[in-house]
């Protein structure tokens, strides 16, 4: 149920950089530190009573974001406000209050519970640390009550058991009880069910929903599994390489993704209905190294709807491939020898055919382009004369082994706004997205060029 409660958590331009300090070797060698931008300039608001989902591939910064919110990490830049107060600027008393109001549930209940403590000891520990409850009897009653709330009823037989005597589902329930016993307002759940079996999973998820009502909780639900996000969350945030790329009500994000990355992500989820027609994700390559992320929009090297410059005359598909050709030449990724070995015709044609090919699922390939074959017929792209000439010149230089000249040839050609400028968050319909396809003022007027499906 999406509700418009008051903002509970507000992030403003929050960044977290790892390895930002200069080590001894770096100092001696005079190297600048090259930090990993795990979370980069994220602004986000979580309302009271909401379940906010964070989704993305591994390494996108979703867990780091979660840990920032419970202050397991300090932000490098930006401010995080909890209930109106900046959490990096709290007095001791305020801090202990904050620690009570914010809790975290970890991914793996096989690791997160101390194997030498009984269930009772584990669940009671937060009460002792926070000095809650008047007497032992009082605390014990509270522990039993919470255990019954999380579905371990009757609680009595569980109290003296050790984690190894419990099943995975029971352990995760103990971990939830441990988070809830201090009566928090906000709980960060980091992949809470990914270690549990399918038949157990639904029980834990439903329990979390029930407890939300009962305890008046706000959740941050981190998961790589989009179907779980779809089931649990009111609002969803999609992250890619430390950036928030899309954010909005879950149903809208799932039904009609705006950002090309979100679309690819949802396309890639297998469908349980065996008769469902499904499109494969139209992306190339893998997630780049976060130490050295691409310029502009982080997603542009993989994106299927990269925006051609205004003076581009051909199709968007042609631009995408010409752009990839240039990118490969600049990075030195284009294997000229291999192209020459494979082909029978003119060397320049062979290099061009290889350089313009993309490794895509069959439904997104051009006619005659086979995955793994790395070759495409350039005439299928209808390149304009100028463009073809530029590409041919570059290919010629490559054949002659002048890699530097080939780069010069392509310098300044095929430049996309996606590569130049980092898109800021803008509104598109009911949600916010960071993509140049959507104009800053008028969200719907600019359609994706060439994106027919």
């Amino acid at each position, binding site marked *: 149920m999406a509700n418009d409660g008051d903002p509970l958590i507000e992030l403003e331009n929050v960044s977290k950089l790892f390895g930002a300090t200069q080590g001894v070797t770096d100092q001696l060698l005079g190297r600048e530190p090259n930090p990993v931008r795990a979370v980069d300039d994220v602004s986000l608001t979580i309302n009271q009573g909401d379940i906010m989902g964070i989704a993305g*591939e*591994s390494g996108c910064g979703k867990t780091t974001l979660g840990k920032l919110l419970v202050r397991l990490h300090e932000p490098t830049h930006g401010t995080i406000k909890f209930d109106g107060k900046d959490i990096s600027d709290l007095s001791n008393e305020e801090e202990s209050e904050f620690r009570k109001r914010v809790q975290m549930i970890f991914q793996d209940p096989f690791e997160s519970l101390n194997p030498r403590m009984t269930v009772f000891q584990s669940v009671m520990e937060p009460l002792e640390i926070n000095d809650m409850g008047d007497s032992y009897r009082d605390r014990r009653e509270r522990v039993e009550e919470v255990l019954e709330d999380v579905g371990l009823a*009757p609680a009595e*037989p569980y109290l003296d058991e050790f984690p190894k005597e419990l*099943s*995975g*589902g*029971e352990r995760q329930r103990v971990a939830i009880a441990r988070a809830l016993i201090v009566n928090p307002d906000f709980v960060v759940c980091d992949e809470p069910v990914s270690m549990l*079996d*399918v*038949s*157990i*999973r*639904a*029980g*834990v*998820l*439903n329990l979390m929903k029930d407890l939300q009502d009962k305890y008046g909780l706000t959740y941050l639900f981190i998961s*790589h599994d*989009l*179907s*779980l996000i*779809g*089931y649990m969350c009111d609002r969803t945030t999609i992250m890619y390489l430390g950036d928030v790329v899309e954010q909005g009500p879950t149903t809208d994000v*799932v039904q009609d993704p705006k950002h090309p990355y979100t679309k*690819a*992500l*949802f*396309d*890639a*989820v*297998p*469908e*349980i*209905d*065996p*008769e*469902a027609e*499904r499109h*494969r*994700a139209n*992306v190339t390559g*893998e*997630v780049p190294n976060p130490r050295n992320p691409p310029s502009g929009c982080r997603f542009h090297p993989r994106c299927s709807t990269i925006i051609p410059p205004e003076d581009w005359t051909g199709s968007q598909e042609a631009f995408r491939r010409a752009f990839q050709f240039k990118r490969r030449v600049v990075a030195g990724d284009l*294997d000229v020898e*291999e192209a020459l070995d494979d082909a029978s015709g003119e060397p320049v044609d062979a290099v061009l055919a290889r350089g313009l090919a993309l*490794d895509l*699922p*069959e439904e997104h390939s051009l006619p005659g382009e086979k*995955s*793994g074959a*790395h070759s495409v017929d350039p005439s299928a792209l209808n390149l304009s004369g100028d463009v073809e000439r530029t590409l041919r010149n570059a290919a010629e230089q490559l054949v002659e082994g002048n890699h530097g000249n080939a780069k010069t040839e392509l310098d300044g050609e095929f430049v996309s706004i996606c590569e130049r400028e980092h898109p800021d968050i803008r509104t598109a319909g009911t949600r916010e997205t960071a993509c140049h396809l959507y104009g800053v003022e008028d969200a719907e007027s600019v359609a994706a060029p060439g994106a027919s499906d």
Partner: protein
Amino acid sequence: MTLLEVNDLSIRYDVDDQSVHAVDGVTFSMDRGETYGLVGESGCGKTTLGKSLVHLLDANGRIDGGEIWLDATLPRWENEQGEPRREIIEDDQYPVREDGKTDLAQLDNEQIRDIRWRNIALIPQSAMNALNPVYKVGDQIIEAIRRHEPQTSVEEADERTRDLLERVGIDPDRADDYAHQFSGGMKQRAVIAMAMACNPDLLIADEPTTALDVIIQDRILDELEELQEEFDVSILVVSHDISVMAEICDQLAVMYGGKFMESGPKTEVFQQSSNPYTLGLKNSFPTVKEKQTDLVSIPGSPPTLLDPDPGCRFADRCPFEIEECGSSHPPMYDVSSAQDGQRVEADDAMTHRSACYRVDELETMRTEATKEETWQTTETH
């Protein structure tokens, strides 16, 4: 044509003086070029079953009974046409049948090595860790080719290795790199290339995409499908992820507690599920695009398989339990006769089968299983 026929296979792990019944009386068969899925929760015996086909069980595991007939034989028993020789078939000391199939369960450790990779290749679970970190990726594939096809020269093997890598979408030059220089998706592709090195008849893929991100998973599944088309290889996929199974399999078996609960063509198993466990599993699985109804979990937790009770393995958690369920685990009944109200044991391992005594009351079970309250009655400690 049938490639693999598994009859009444049982596998035990010895633990002290007890034994874990990891796989119990499983019967199924696979056609050439087909993808067969084994789906189930952790500890249901699906990986054990896959690995037992090529004798890759842990030291305390053993095949306790049953037959594994594969349509191939050892090179030393073959004639020039690749068929088993007449005298081998007729001699009782060799486990070779009239139709040319060999019983893998009876081969010893030395003999099974000729089957591994040449006929059956394994893509292990967490392929991320399956590559040796101190050898170049290409050299590992060359090693496999040369072990199983000793007549191949190093140069030929090297060329084949590079072709294989290119085939799965890796730049052939990367054969000279080490595993740590590969990304997760590339390692997975390299392991697939390695499994395909000797052009096997059967590929066992144990959780082939579990550690991968969803977009890479999508590409790897696509890759597997293409390879299958190109090389006409059969794939036995082991996974806990029902939606991955729905995507790639032709035939499917749902396992629970070491037993097959339901098996048959994919669409039938999914759309006309006929076993309480399958029905429960479907209730507890969220989908991303369809309209979401509330998830319902199956109460209780999976059984331990240490000397289990004789009754149906699922009985403790099953809302449809009757007295008969406690007597012995139900055999696999034929679903199409059950729909006419008859309870007949299935004689064909390829048809839609379900192990449930109440299979003749299918309609009632299906209706009841969609109701949430059905699953709440048996909640226990």
